[in-house]
């Protein structure tokens, strides 16, 4: 019976991607996948002569467990969220990473000192740092503009609908920070039942005016359609809409919630050694700089920010648009993946019950 199951799952998984390549990289598609293709996949192929291809997935973390359990892993490298990298590593479906083998920075700093804290874990290496921020349409506010995280919840001073991601993660933290909790204390407070109540009480104040979004692309779309006056979003999406499409969108960095995105190798990857070589290249100073030139997510090595970074259009200076820029980090929170791996189900049940109650 079990063999049969595995066979049937493997059959369908195998047919899906019959890619004939030395290294298959799975990422999120869209502007993000394109940036990784330009910055990592193509240069690595040219440099080493190995064939590498990029495939898209709605969430690359989702199929990994199924592939590993079916014994038919067709992907060598996947780009997954930090919490997923921790969780999948816990579940034993990822190859361990040899941190000592990562190359030193371009300026000679040893990898261990060059990477930002938390950027290298047992099973993953950070490819960039992205942030949950909130953004507004500057043409909608003629007088004072929103500048603080509390402004997101201030319907009197800044009237209009609010866009929020439908889910507990990053929303509860935002509510607590807007309620005056210092970033350093957010997870301590959220770890108590009173803290969770406090976050939901803050959300109650704007509940009637919230438009909930699910997919990353919806947030800038809601802003562009005038459906909301402000919305939380992934900072890269707002940057793309503002720079590429010339939309009058402004990001408020106060209260940003940032986290690492990780490259991981599924256990049993067909070309494990080449995959590790790809990760070494992609997370080198050169690879990280190249990615930040294609999308506004911050490089996770200090050495990558030593010299000025320009966007691929050749004129936009990237530093002020990156979550890792010092001026953007004055009031910021690093997502606690440990907290979310532990409490994701519980808090989402609470969140969904809260949503459903009118």
């Amino acid at each position, binding site marked *: 019976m079990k063999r049969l199951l595995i066979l049937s799952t493997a059959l369908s998984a195998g047919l899906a991607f019959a890619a004939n390549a030395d290294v298959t990289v799975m990422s999120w598609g869209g502007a993000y996948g394109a940036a990784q293709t330009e910055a990592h996949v193509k240069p690595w192929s040219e440099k080493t002569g190995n064939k590498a291809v990029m495939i898209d997935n709605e969430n690359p973390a989702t199929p990994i467990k199924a592939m590993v359990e079916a014994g038919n892993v067709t992907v060598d490298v996947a780009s997954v969220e930090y919490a997923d990298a921790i969780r999948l590593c816990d579940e034993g479906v990822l190859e361990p990473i040899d941190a000592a083998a990562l190359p030193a920075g371009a300026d000679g700093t040893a990898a261990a000192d060059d990477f930002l804290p938390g950027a290298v874990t047992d099973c993953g290496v950070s490819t960039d740092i992205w942030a949950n921020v909130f953004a507004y349409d500057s043409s909608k506010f003629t007088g004072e503009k929103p500048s603080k995280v509390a402004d997101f919840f201030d319907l009197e001073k800044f009237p209009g609908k609010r866009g929020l991601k439908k889910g507990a993660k990053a929303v509860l933290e935002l509510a607590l920070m807007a309620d005056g909790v210092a970033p350093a204390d957010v997870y301590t407070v959220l770890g108590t039942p009173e803290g969770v109540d406090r976050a939901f009480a803050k959300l109650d104040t704007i509940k009637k005016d919230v438009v909930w979004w*699910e997919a990353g692309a919806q947030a800038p779309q809601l802003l562009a359609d005038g459906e909301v006056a402000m919305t939380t979003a992934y900072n890269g999406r707002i940057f793309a809409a503002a720079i590429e499409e010339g939309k009058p969108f402004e990001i408020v960095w106060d209260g940003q919630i940032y986290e690492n995105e990780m490259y991981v190798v599924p256990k049993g990857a067909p070309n494990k050694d080449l995959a590790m070589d790809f990760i070494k290249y992609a997370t080198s100073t050169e690879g990280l700089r190249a990615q930040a030139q294609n999308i506004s997510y911050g490089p996770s090595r200090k050495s990558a920010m030593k010299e000025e970074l320009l966007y691929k259009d050749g004129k936009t200076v990237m530093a002020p648009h990156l979550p890792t820029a010092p001026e953007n980090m004055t009031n910021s929170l690093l997502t606690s993946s440990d907290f979310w791996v532990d409490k994701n189900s519980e808090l989402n049940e609470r969140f969904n019950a809260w949503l459903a109650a009118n």
Partner: protein
Amino acid sequence: MADATAVPPMSPALLTTADGRPLKAALQAAQARARRRAFLLVAPLLLFVVLTFIVPIGQMLHRSVYHDGLSSNAPKIAAWFAATPAGTPPDEAAWAALAEDFKAMKANKTAGEAGTRVNYTLPETRSLFTKTARGADKLAPPWHEAFVAIDPKWDDLAVWQAMRGASTAYTTDFYLIATDRTRDAAGNVEQVAENQRIYLWLFGKTFFLSGMITVICLALAFPVAHLLATLPARKANLLMILVLLPFWTSLLVRTTSWMVLLQGQGVVNDLLVRGGLIGDESRLAMMYNQTGTIIVMTHVLLPFMILPLYSVMRVIPPSYARAARSLGATSWTTFRRIYLPQTLPGIGAGALLVFILAVGYYITPALVGGADGQLISNLIQFHMANSNWSLAAALAAMLLAGVLVLYWLYDRLIGIDNLKLG
């Protein structure tokens, strides 16, 4: 072929074939051959159905009651749980068994896997497990104090209760969670706190909304199907294309088109405001809520109601209705007593199709549902994405059971052999 002398003597009454075999046996042999051939013909389909349908459903049902994350990685403590009755507080033997398991889990890097299983029933135990495993090498007797020194949470009986629940591979824990229930520290089943209850309510809402969408679809599809069935062929074909065109269009395209039409700053609201029917301040909220879910799902599922109805209505002879009218029935009576009963197989098929599809829908509610328009499948998807497959399987199994009960009811009330799909 057969040697004539080898054929046993037969009574003249027994019919035989030309080569002397009894006709009955020859016929049976021929039929068996035909049956084998027929079976070989359907064998690929049978294999396909078994591999892609029966096996995955069996696997899903199995997963909803099976998770060996703790029992396979921490066999010593699992054995202690098996040997002691529920509610036994941990003794020194239990702590020693746990310490041994933790040392093994540290060596095999499986503490996260075991902790994840316990975390399903009691949040924050996963990090308790990984933290304890990190310090496992330093564990030494007295065991109890050693564990509490790593984390005082080890003294919490709820942790031990959750571990007891997880210590056997076969478990009802996931069905408990899926019905908004939990076990207290003593092992008794109780409801979770009111602000955590979501699944049963969402099941009810999913079935209610699906029923409502089915009724709306029927009300909209009935006249259209009737028109299609009675118009001259050329006009009917044109109309049919209008029905089928959306059917062939991508689901996502249709859903996003509705967003453009119905959102606050959308086409419909703009027209209403420009026409002076509503003020700019009081734009209608038709999207990102339950209304949006109902409108879009009705549109998406409408062809599944129109097509079976059409196929049934097309073959209803118009002479029956004419005969009824000529015998003095009013048009209402004719419809109620002559036409409607003849369309019942189509209504049954369409309603069943639409209802079952609606119950499992998740893309549309995810995109347009907003706060109050999401369905149980959105939560199943959430748990799939977070690799809590067992809970997702338990929820899906309950959904399947609900649909089967309704199917059974349908069979009792209307009769499944009355179904006509096309």
